[in-house]
């Protein structure tokens, strides 16, 4: 069974909430990304979401945009990311790995994804395709890689059903109208929408995009199957990368983990 599916069902049967941590591959460089991934999983991250840098990341706010730029300056590509993941897998063959990125880079590296050596990657989230579609619709047949689709507060009811049924990893509920790292969570709306999604989805529904604090994480975990933390981690990586001091990150992750358990 795919690591992601296994992990999510394990979390569910233990009555726990999933914690997904996001970072951008190659930020500050690809070697450090491997170290950060180890730190993530040892501090309590259940699923690691790896941002694939792109020149034009239209769904990202300033914090993650800058991380994409830093990674591109280091010539990070999907090729180096697959190599990095292979290295990481020597240490950790348990933690599900999700690639999150933009269609153009995935189409360009169709072969890499179709090979997916040793099933190292578990899932792919393509930000800029409609939720009812997946990479297969663009000619990229992926072996044992499942699909994570986005549903947003503006998704119409008839599409919620289509998208929920299309998601084979988890449904990613975008908690706000906006780019990653914004802040204007409307908890009542979120609760209502996640409830609607759960009526249709056979996979768990996780919430992300606007979670900035431990309090946000707790609020959202209460009404979903788990939370995705992105911008606040990427910001800490930016702040710590000069001296490669990442202790704060581990602490932050374990505090969130505690808060949502």
């Amino acid at each position: 069974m795919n690591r992601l599916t296994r992990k999510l069902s394990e979390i569910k049967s233990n009555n726990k909430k999933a914690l997904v941590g996001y970072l951008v591959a190659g930020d500050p460089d690809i070697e450090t990304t491997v170290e950060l991934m180890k730190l993530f999983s040892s501090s309590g991250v259940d699923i690691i979401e790896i941002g694939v840098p792109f020149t034009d990341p239209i769904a990202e706010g300033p914090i993650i945009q800058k991380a994409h730029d830093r990674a591109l300056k280091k010539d990070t590509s999907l090729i180096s990311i697959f190599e990095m993941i292979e290295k990481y897998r020597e240490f950790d063959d348990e933690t599900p790995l999700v690639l999150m990125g933009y269609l153009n880079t995935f189409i360009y590296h169709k072969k890499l994804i179709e090979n997916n050596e040793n099933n190292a990657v578990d899932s792919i989230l393509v930000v800029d395709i409609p939720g009812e579609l997946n990479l297969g619709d663009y000619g990229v047949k992926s072996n044992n890689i499942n699909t994570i689709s986005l549903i947003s507060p503006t998704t119409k009811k008839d599409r919620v059903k289509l998208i929920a049924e299309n998601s084979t990893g988890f449904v990613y509920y975008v908690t706000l109208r906006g780019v990653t790292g914004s802040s204007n969570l409307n908890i009542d709306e979120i609760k209502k929408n996640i409830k609607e999604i759960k009526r249709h989805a056979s996979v768990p529904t996780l919430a992300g995009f606007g979670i900035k604090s431990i309090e946000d994480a707790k609020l959202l975990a209460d009404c979903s199957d788990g939370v995705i933390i992105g911008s606040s981690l990427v910001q800490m990586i930016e702040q710590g990368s000069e001296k490669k001091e990442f202790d704060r990150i581990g602490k932050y992750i374990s505090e969130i983990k505690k808060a949502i358990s």
Partner: protein
Amino acid sequence: MESNNNLPDKNGFFGEYGGKFVPETLMYALDELENTYNKLKDSNEFKKQFYKDLSEFVGRPSPLYFAERLTKHYGTGSIWLKREDLNHTGAHKINNTIGQILLAKYMGKKRIIAETGAGQHGVATATVAARLGLECHIYMGAEDVQRQSLNVYRIKLLGAKVHSVDSGSATLKDALNEALRDWVTNVDDTYYIIGSVTGPHPYPMIVRDFNSVVGEELIDQSKELFNTMPDAIVACVGGGSNAMGAFYPFININQTRLIGVEAAGNGLQTGEHAAPLNDGSPGVLHGALSYLMQDEAGQVKATKSVSAGLDYPGVGPEHSWLKDSGRAEYVAVDDDEALEAFHQVSELEGIIPALETAHAFAYLETLMKEFDDKSNIIVNVSGRGDKDINTVAEIDGIKI
């Protein structure tokens, strides 16, 4: 707004190009826009208002003007100029904004956003927003804010706010990214007036249709002035809206060659240019699959052109389709050739063209050799060059 082919299809594709490649948050907004447009576009009331505004506010129809000295200069055929530079605000861009602001009004949107490169679309958007008293925000790359400062000030005078965009290459592509991010954030009350035949479906179709008034007028004017259809229409291609507007009504008129001129910047062979149809490959940017300047990792390449309005790595999907189907031809001229044409047309015709338009003029040097005396060649004069005076003066080493 006649239809000459049945494209795009219901999913927004022109052959394999086009589509809707956007974050989920925007899907409903695009559906809403498409439904509104489909409902309004054939209604008499909407058409009446659109053409009334074009006539009374923009000053349409724009003349088709015989360029006597330019014709003499080349010595063959007859060169005719479609004078979009005479439109209110000085470019073809207003045809589109006049139409889209009507859609915005109908949809009850309170806030207007747009991206701009040369600033002409920013001015045209700020203009129609001012006319309706709507809040307006224009995104513009920091580099373009510098080189098109005249238009920046015009936009401000019209009561809109200019947001200078520093990310990426700080040009049109990045302004578009930022406008899309604004739209994702404020999608409920905001209408995004995209400035070219680019972006996700239904924009390429809508912007084409509103600009098609240019080609429609050309059909009538050609009959009247030289009694047949033209042998060629030449237009510059950035995103491709002035070209598409001129070409579209001619798609089924096979005697007319349709020629789009891209910006070759420092030269096609240097790789430093903005000519995806000449030297790019299909890829996804800003919501559509189309020819794109990209590297071997699928990353979008930086562009180079003296003309801010052409300095864009992508192109409207319908042009990609017209290229592959062979119905239109796409060529490129470099910065030096465009600058030479800028001076040439100013001196020969008393018309200072926009640097974008100068690219179309520059191609006459090659094209006119292919025609005989009886030929009629139309150049779409997409805009006037006032905005470019500072850029050209600087290149010529002159301080104003």
